Structure formats: structure tokens, C-alpha cells
């Protein structure tokens, strides 16, 4: 068997565009899923039963079904049911953001609940309102505490973006598989794809390790 690595160089532009799209998807998804997760967490902690039942159902649906199904669902069912049409990119982004929001909401909720009641009392005792206590006392501590978990979600998300290739979002996986189909250089293309994912993913994983060490819960 003979390797034809020139295939990779010939298509390097496309690979790079795909890699850029993967990064863009990851960043945008997280940018949506952090506020999304916070909102869901607050809804789940809300004292209104209807609100937190609805939020819980939402979260548990997205946590307990495969992401690829959610991607398809958003791609096929949403337009058919609600008569709205998204681009493939928006569809992929929406599915990822909903999914990661659900995971983030559990992370934030755990973080918020991990802050001692005494901290809330201390804030209230100096005359703060409940929202002020949340904003100035509870959330800053909760977010620091869950940074390692958020960072792990980030790395999973980075790899999971490959699933939106199924709806033809031109990220790294989709582009690679297309090049494979055009050139039939399966081994070279898959190797290049793996190398690119690894080159981007490894520093992130190391960064996450550092975040874990740096923000380890210490009181």
C-alpha cells in the first residue's frame, strides 16, 4: 500500500476552513449555552412548580437523548412543525446550544446549591436583596467552583461538533469526509482529520487539566 500525502496538501485550504468552522461552532455554542444554562438553572431552582417542572423536563430530555437525534430533530421536525427554515449552520448551532445548555444548567445548578446557606444569610443580613445575593455572593463562587466541569463540557463539545456533519454543516468532519469521497484516499484523509482534531483538542485538554488544578475546590 502506498500513501499519497500530497492529497492532504492539495486540500489544505478546505481542511483549514473546516477546522475554522469547528472552532467557530464550539465557541458560538458555548457563548449561547452559558447564559442558556444559567437561565435553565434558575428556572429549575425557581419556587414556582410549573416553571421548574417545565425546565426539568426540557433539561432531562436533552440530557437523556443522543445529540445526533437532536440534530436531526431540529433539522427535520422543527421546520416541518413550525414552518421555520434555518440554514444548516444555524440548525447545527441551535441543536448543539440546546444540548450543551442542558448540561450546563445541571452544572450551574449543582454549583449554586453547593454554596452554603450561611453565605446567603450573610448577604441578606447586610440588607442585600435576593437577586443581589445571587449576583454578588452566590454566582461568583458557584461559577469558580464549576469551572472545571464547564471546561470538560467544552472539550466534549469541541468533539461533538462533528455530529452536525450529518446535516451538511461544513465543519472539519464534513469537509474531511467530502475530500475522502472525492479522492478515495481514505487512510490519508482520516489520518489528517485525526491529526487536526488532536492538534486542536490536545491543548484544550491540557488547558482543562490546568483549570482543574487551578480552580480545585478549596475553602
Amino acid at each position, binding site marked *: 500500500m502506498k500513501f499519497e500525502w500530497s492529497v492532504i496538501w492539495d486540500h489544505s485550504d478546505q481542511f483549514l476552513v473546516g477546522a475554522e468552522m469547528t472552532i467557530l461552532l464550539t465557541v458560538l455554542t458555548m457563548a449561547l449555552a452559558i447564559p442558556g444554562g444559567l437561565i435553565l438553572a434558575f428556572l429549575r431552582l425557581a419556587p414556582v412548580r410549573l416553571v421548574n417542572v417545565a425546565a426539568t423536563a426540557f433539561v432531562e430530555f436533552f440530557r437523556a437523548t443522543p445529540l445526533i437525534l437532536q440534530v436531526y430533530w431540529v433539522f427535520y421536525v422543527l421546520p416541518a412543525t413550525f414552518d421555520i427554515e434555518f440554514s444548516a449552520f444555524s440548525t447545527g448551532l441551535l441543536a448543539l446550544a440546546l444540548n450543551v445548555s442542558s448540561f450546563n444548567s445541571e452544572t450551574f445548578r449543582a454549583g449554586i446549591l453547593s454554596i452554603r446557606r*450561611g453565605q446567603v444569610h450573610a448577604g441578606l*443580613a447586610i440588607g442585600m436583596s435576593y437577586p443581589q445575593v445571587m449576583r*454578588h455572593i452566590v454566582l461568583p463562587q458557584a461559577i469558580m467552583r464549576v469551572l472545571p466541569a464547564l471546561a470538560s463540557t467544552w472539550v466534549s463539545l469541541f468533539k461533538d461538533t462533528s455530529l452536525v456533519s450529518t446535516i451538511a454543516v461544513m465543519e472539519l468532519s464534513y469537509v474531511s469526509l467530502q475530500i475522502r469521497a472525492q479522492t478515495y484516499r481514505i487512510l490519508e484523509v482520516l489520518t489528517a482529520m485525526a491529526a487536526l482534531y488532536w492538534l486542536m483538542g490536545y491543548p484544550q485538554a491540557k488547558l482543562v487539566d490546568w483549570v482543574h488544578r487551578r480552580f480545585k475546590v478549596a475553602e
Partner: protein
Amino acid sequence: MTESRSRVGQSEPPILAFDGVVKRYGPLQALSGVSFQVNRGEVVCLIGPSGSGKSTLLRCANALETIEGGRVVFEGIDLAEKETNVRKLRQRMGMVFQNFELFPHLTVLRNVTIGLTTVLGMAREPAEVRAMELLRKVGLVDKATKHPAALSGGQQQRVAIARALAMEPDVMLFDEPTSALDPETIGEVLSVMKRLADEGMTMVVVTHEMDFARRVANWVVVFDKGQVIEEGPPKQIFESAAVPRTRDFLSHLGWHGEDRIEGAQV
């Protein structure tokens, strides 16, 4: 030895009054009809066995706990009335917790200023000026830029006192302020509290420091099983308690009258 003090400020209505306060946690009756008063300028110490309801009562005093019966009246205002602005009242009651409850993500200085800037809307600079004054008062100016985790328990509790004082409260509530401290740092906290008392601050102190209660309090309230079983000036409580359970409690702490205990406490 300082002479035992007694009630002051009785000519005006009490600053804080508890009237038949009832608090339940499920089937547990934590407070079953507690009544006593705190006058302006007084130091009132609440003593009694653990679980007798002292700390619960203190949390009821600034509505951190809701009550099932009776009334808590602060400066003439019933806390439970619908139109009562509890937040406004809390600003006038400083609270010091057993576990300090400093905000660990903020510097010492910011712990003291955060109430001023977020609650009173004060600008940062004047807030910091006031905070530094208070840190000077509790002897911790040099720790202003540190985080609470870098401080000893006694130092943290002094910061917590400064944080409460920053709001210029009319009354200070202390919930077992020295119970979580190493023995060697208890003294520094008690002396800050003693100084506050000498300046005329109204204080309600839940404590197991009998020496502090005896020397600093104007009035001592004895709790047992969610009730006030006895109250009086410290001299009376510590030397000639009328209620047998008070005497039992004090003797459990090794208190057998001041002559034998002198020098042994704290």
C-alpha cells in the same frame, strides 16, 4: 474585677422586643413562646445549652427565619407586618455568624465595602475610606488586600464584625461569635466586642463565654428547650440563679460561683 452591670435605657421603648415567639421545624418546636426585650445601649447575652433555641431566635430577630407565632418588634416595627421592609430593617441590624461567613471570593476590604456599595449605593472611594477606618478599629488594616482564606479564624471574625459595623447598625447580633475559633484567637474577638460594648453599641450575644457574659452583659437571658427559663442581671444569674436548671447548666460548664472560677475561664 469589674462590677456586674444591669439594665440601661429603660426610659424609652425597647429597641428589640420578642413577644411569645414560636418557631417550628416540622415536628420540632425550636422556640415555644420566647419573650424578652433589649433596650438601646444594652448588651444582652443569651446563654443556655446547645439546641436550646438561642441561635434560632437570633435569626428570627432579623427575619432570616420566619416565625409561626408571636411577634418580633424592632424599633417599633413588627417584622411580620406585610408593609414592613425587611431589607431596610436588616441594614440597621448587624449580624455576626458563628462560622464568620465572610465572602471567600472577595478581599477583606471588599467584604467590608460590599454592603455599602451594593445596598447603600455608596461610591467605591468613600466606602473604602469607611472600611479602612473599621479595619483599623478591629486591628486588621494590614490585611485589607488579603482574601479571607489567608486569615486566622479570629482575624476573619474581626473582619466579619467590621463588615457588619460598616452599615452603621443600631444593634449588633452575635451568633456564638467565638465557638468556631481556636482558643488562642478567642480573646482578640472578645476584646473587640468588649470595646464595642464600651462605646455603647446595643448588642445581643449568643455565647458560651460565661466570663464575657458576666463582665460585659447588662442582662442575661437563659434558654432551655426553646424557652426562656430565667433572665436577670449577670450578678443574679451567675451568683444566685433562682431556677435549678440554670444552676445545673452553669455547673456543667464548671461554673460554681465566681471565686472558684476566676482565672479558669477563657
